[in-house]
């Protein structure tokens, strides 16, 4: 008589067996295998004695207290202020002198809102483009590793210029956290734009991007911008 293996019985106990009729029928007919199954059941029942210790009723709050200390600082909800200020600072020069007629107060307000919206979209786009570029560095599979390409260096240089403007504005209006993120981004973009075309340079950049959680920081900043 062919008996089921221990593996067959384990799968049967966990409901993972291919429940063919022969196994069920065999267990009905074979005392030895039924005893074997009973032993396995008993062993596993004893394992159930290992119950985790109780946690206090405020356990979740205690865990949060520990975890929250390790999280990156949240961006201030007033981030819209520096973005609005950026709209004024960056676009004021561009628009200065272009209108000869003096607009009334309502027109100025509407123009201000439009400028802010334009800049928010531009900044959001800038952050997304930066993420895409950094992702290309991070996600390049080892098997197809290649040096930093000239085109990537060129894109990094362009993004670097824009990033400096946004960062300077952020500092001017006191949005230090956001400015710090942009400054970190700048350093990476600078190295990418000036770095050697080598595999080592790419690996070095990949490590820095990952160690500094740059993609995460850019995503958070981008999400904040999109809210306004």
């Amino acid at each position, binding site marked *: 008589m062919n008996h089921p293996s221990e593996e067959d019985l384990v799968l049967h106990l966990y409901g993972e067996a291919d429940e063919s009729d022969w196994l069920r029928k065999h267990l009905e007919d074979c005392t030895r295998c039924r005893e074997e199954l009973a032993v396995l059941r008993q*062993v596993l029942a004893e394992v159930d004695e290992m119950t985790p210790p109780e946690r206090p009723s405020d356990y979740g709050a205690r865990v949060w207290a520990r975890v929250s200390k390790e999280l990156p600082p949240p961006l201030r909800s007033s981030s819209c202020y520096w973005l609005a200020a950026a709209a004024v600072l960056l676009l004021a020069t561009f628009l200065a002198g272009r209108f000869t007629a003096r607009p009334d107060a309502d027109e100025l307000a509407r123009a201000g809102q439009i400028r802010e919206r334009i800049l928010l979209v531009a900044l959001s786009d800038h952050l997304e483009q930066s993420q895409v570029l950094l992702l290309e560095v991070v996600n390049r599979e080892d098997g197809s590793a290649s040096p930093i390409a000239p085109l990537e260096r060129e894109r990094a240089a362009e993004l670097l210029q824009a990033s400096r403007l946004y960062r300077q504005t952020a500092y001017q209006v006191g949005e230090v956290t956001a400015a710090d993120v942009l400054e970190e981004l700048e350093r990476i973009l600078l190295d990418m734009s000036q770095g050697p075309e080598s595999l080592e340079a790419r690996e070095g950049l990949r490590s820095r991007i990952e160690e500094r959680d740059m993609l995460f920081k850019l995503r958070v900043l981008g999400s904040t911008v999109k809210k306004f």
Partner: protein
Amino acid sequence: MKAVVTEDVLARARSGDQAAFRIIVEGYSRDVFRLAFRITGNEEDAEDAVQETFLRAYRKLEGFEARANFGTWLYRVTANTSIDVLRKRKRSDDRTAPLEDEGPAVGIAPSQEKTVYRHQVRARVESALSCLSELERGAFVLRHFEEMSLAEVSASLDTTVSATKQALFRAVRKLRKSLAPVEGSAS
């Protein structure tokens, strides 16, 4: 894990909202601890795993697809974090000291005998579990205690169903061997 947060909370947490993430932490802490304890085998390591699990989850939330089951995803993060903690841990004799060595229960009341017996069995089980490899322990805990299917376990442990099965078989075989002396004595 039970769904304890809404899609709105998840969406806000994914965009970096820490107040939303707090709801997740407070809602899932007990489940995460339970799994972490069963994989690591002691409170100290389990607490480390709990904290690290939520920090990893916060960083990886971007990769979580909204249509997926968040509890399953968090299980995966917890299991892998706990296994990492287990790997790093230097097993000391103190932590795995079998409690049955505390001596015979002399002069205790009959009502306490069962408690003492359960205590001894538990110590023996903990000792037996500590002999499993990380993969064996992870596979066994997720299948036995958390009642995940083998397919779910393999997905959580980033391995194949076949490798998960083999790990489960080895785990049960080792446990049976370690627990053999008390087989038949439980009641």
